[in-house]
């Protein structure tokens, strides 16, 4: 509800025709001296015992992902699940042990050092957990830094820096040093800096984990706002499921280096692939992720009995207050406005109260 512009994309993601921007295929990252021989002999079949015996650490295990242009893709997992390593493999900050990373269909791992520098200078931007601001540079200089590394003339890089500083609402702080700013402001500088080069792929590595909860919400809204304007391809890491659901078009859940499920927030909540995912999503309010089509039943009333009409992609939470107040069923319309089903207000109440179907059969008339 709070960030509708992002959510509307999620339904489209199911039948997404947008080109793949960045992808990885059979990606592995194994730490340890015998990483390669281990991979050759055991590979994907390796058991935890094998891993312990070979004295290696498998940080990323046979990961396949496709992130489409303009999509906000969340990589989510607890600490140690390999999400940070995965994203560092995608940007080649960490050299993968095996597999492919495809940026615009070209294998990033084949790029020479010079090519890689060029790709990073022009196509990638990254926001860091602890901001990674250079302490000896002012806000303006920090934001202009990536441009200055490319050798852009001073006037040009400063005017661009001022643009992005304005974009993140920090105008007036250009000549401050990072140490003179609050945590939230510092991360705004980090965001501005990552956007200064107009990247095509935007990596955000737990950007808000180091911030207080209130500031975190504010910054999430900020990212959502920016993304609604900029439409970057975003790869966003977090360990916070609420953050993932608020921001993500699709979410990949990682555990022990493996991606165990990829899907829209709705998929993860309604159809968790494993008990682990179910555990993760247990406390997520269903109404916020569930769309009307999920709760819809076949048409049983005539249209004049409806309290209102909603779209099949609308989240339950967006019309819950109205349907509860109306105490009447709502019609559900598809893209073209044709009513394809209806939602009973009792079902919405059950959903909001967290009552499952079988229990409701027993208690409510």
């Amino acid at each position, binding site marked *: 509800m709070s960030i509708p512009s992002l959510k509307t994309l999620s339904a489209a993601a199911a039948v997404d025709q947008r080109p793949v921007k960045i992808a990885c295929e059979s990606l592995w990252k194994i730490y340890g001296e015998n990483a390669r021989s281990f991979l050759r002999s055991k590979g994907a079949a390796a058991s935890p015992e094998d891993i312990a015996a070979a004295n290696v650490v498998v940080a990323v295990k046979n990961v396949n992902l496709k992130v489409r242009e303009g999509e906000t893709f969340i990589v989510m997992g607890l600490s140690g699940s390999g999400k940070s390593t995965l994203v560092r493999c995608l940007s080649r900050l960490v050299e993968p042990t095996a597999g492919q990373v495809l940026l615009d269909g070209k294998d990033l791992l084949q790029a020479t050092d010079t090519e890689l520098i*060029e790709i990073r*200078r022009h196509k*990638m931007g990254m926001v860091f*957990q602890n901001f990674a601001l250079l*302490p*000896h540079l002012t806000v303006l200089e920090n934001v202009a830094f*990536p441009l200055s590394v490319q050798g852009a003339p001073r006037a040009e890089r400063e005017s661009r820096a001022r643009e992005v500083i304005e974009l993140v609402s920090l105008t007036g702080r250009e*000549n401050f040093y990072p*140490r003179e700013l609050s945590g939230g402001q510092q991360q705004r500088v980090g965001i501005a800096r990552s956007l200064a080069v107009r990247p095509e792929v935007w990596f955000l590595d737990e950007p808000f984990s180091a911030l207080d909860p209130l500031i975190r919400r504010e910054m999430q809204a900020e990212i959502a706002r920016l993304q609604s304007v900029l439409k970057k391809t975003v790869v966003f890491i977090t360990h916070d499921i609420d953050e993932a659901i608020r921001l993500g078009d699709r979410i990949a859940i990682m555990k022990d280096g493996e991606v165990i499920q990829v899907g829209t927030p709705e998929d993860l909540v309604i159809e968790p692939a494993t008990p682990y995912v179910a555990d993760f999503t247990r406390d997520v309010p269903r109404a916020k992720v569930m769309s009307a089509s999920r709760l819809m039943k076949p048409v049983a009333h005539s249209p004049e009995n409806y309290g209102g009409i909603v779209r099949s992609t609308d989240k339950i939470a967006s019309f819950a207050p109205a349907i509860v107040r109306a105490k009447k069923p709502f019609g559900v319309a598809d893209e073209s406005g044709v009513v394809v089903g209806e939602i009973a207000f009792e079902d919405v109440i059950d959903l909001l109260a967290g009552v499952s179907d079988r229990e409701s059969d027993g208690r409510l008339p």
Partner: protein
Amino acid sequence: MSRALSIEGMVSEPVSFHALAWAAALLGTVLLFVFPDALPWAVKYPSWAVVPFADAMSAVMNFLKTYFSWLTRGITDVLSVPLGFVTGLLAKGWKIGSGPDAWMIPRVSWVGIVAAFTIAGYALGGARLASLAAGCMLYVAIFGQWDSTMLTLSLIVVAVPLCILIGVAIGIVGFRRPGVDAFVISPALDFMQTVPTFAYLLPMLLLFGTNPVAAVIATAIFSIPPMVRATTLALQRVPAEIDDLGSMVGCSPRQKLYRVLLPSGRPLLMVGVNQVIMLALNMVIIASMIGAGGLGYDVLLALRALKIGPGMEAGLAIVVIAIVLDRLSQAAATYRPAAAIPGAPVWQNHPYLSFALLVLVVTTLLSLAFPPLGSLPKAWTVSTGPMWKAAIDWINVNYFDAIDAFRTSLIVWVLNPVRNFLEGFPWLAAVTLLSLAGYTLGGLRLVLVVLPLTLFCAVTGLWEKSMATLYLCGVATAISLLIGVPIGLYAARSDRFQAFITPILDTLQTLPSFCFIIPVVMLFRVGDVTALIATVLFAIVPAIRYTNHGIRQIPVSLIEAAKVSGCTPRQTFWRVQLPLALPEIMLGINQTVLLALSMIIICAMIGTRDLGQEVFIALAKADAGRGITAGIAIAFIGIVADRLLRALARRAQSNLGLA
């Protein structure tokens, strides 16, 4: 001392081959002690077996001198240019032309320099630092030490940047090539830091002759290690994210180093710079022996002639300069300038710098018309010399008996017995016991360090001198610990006492080693007692510091847990605080030993009879082989002590599960 400690370490090992080896070694030692005539060659190293290492060193030096004079001369010529410029600027002025037509470009006015130091103090640390800087520099001027101080300062001004440049370069190599760091750079630095200051002078003296350039080079080499270490450490400590940032914005390796890593490591680099400055000052003073001139030379002259007044005055000037340089460079390390306003004129963006330069130029120009601004007339200066002399005389008249009794009893009851014991100690037994200690504490690797290094002292025929060094060093360490540890413990308990003692410790730590000798020698004359007291003063600081810190770093929760469990304060101390602070205290002991060793060597100037004296004599005779060999022996003693004590501290730590 290391023997007693190592036996303690042995106890925790399972009884086995180890215990047997120890028992056999100890038994053998006792037997050799009781029946020294049974195996005379194992007691006293036989002279026929001495390897002429010193001669070989001399030959090498001669070879270098003969075939590389083009290089040394070239270096001298190159370095003479900045050195001549800076000494001209600060101390001597320039003379253009000759005879009666010659005219002088004056040196920078002393008033200007005092003002510049004051402005720097204000810019870096506000009014307090400004008044400290002003007071110290005025002291130097008013008490007639200006010329010598400026000479000393100009050597530092040339040596320090050289040192920083080379140090940062080596540090970068160490950061980029961890293998080179571990196997070449680090061991070399360890060695350099245990070689006594004197030993640096010898090769410089031979290769570059007696002149200020040799002093600058010796100073630069001596002061490099902390800069190298600080650079490598600063680069390693840059957060991984900052490093990643450098990669992600597409920095080339060079851009990443110079624009991301080095600037991010600035605070630690500045700590290195501070240490370099202080070491350089220390060394410049000692380098006065090979023609550096300046304050060190004044002190040296006064010491030789036992002139109390001038010695104290020059010594105090060194103290004062040390304090000013230390505080200013420390403040510079934490200094964060306000952001420059783009487009604004220089004097607006750098107001302090511009103002200081302006004052320097104006006062110097004025000094053309008004000479007292150029150099303070003798009549205006004050001398405290007579006062110091009177004070010392008064003490000597009134307390001579007490001082003498103290001195004699120290010699008779402590120094001589220890000395006789150590000098009579069979060398073979000592080498064996130390190697065994090495094995117990650090396994075969440590033996491979301890055995060859101790053998070196014996094989080069320096065993007795080494023992003489060890004896003074050992006694000084013991006394430092006996006094220092209780002070540290008390400081840990009382915040007020800590606040009182911290500035004293800071100052003691800042002072060049030379300064400690002067007052003591006035009271106790030359000899081992003086060396001992000066050494204790110099070496006590880490004993106090580490003890205090060791106790204070124990988490409050542990102390609370002890209290809740019903410990009395005494029990809390003995059963919780002391054991947990032990590893830290041991590191303090390690530092104390190394400081004591370095100071003992300098005390050769006041007539000790150890390895230091060997270097000192070699320096006087310009006998490179002899001096360098003794210098290496000293370094080896230091390294052996350091490795054994560090292994002991590590063991204490792992016993506590801290490492």
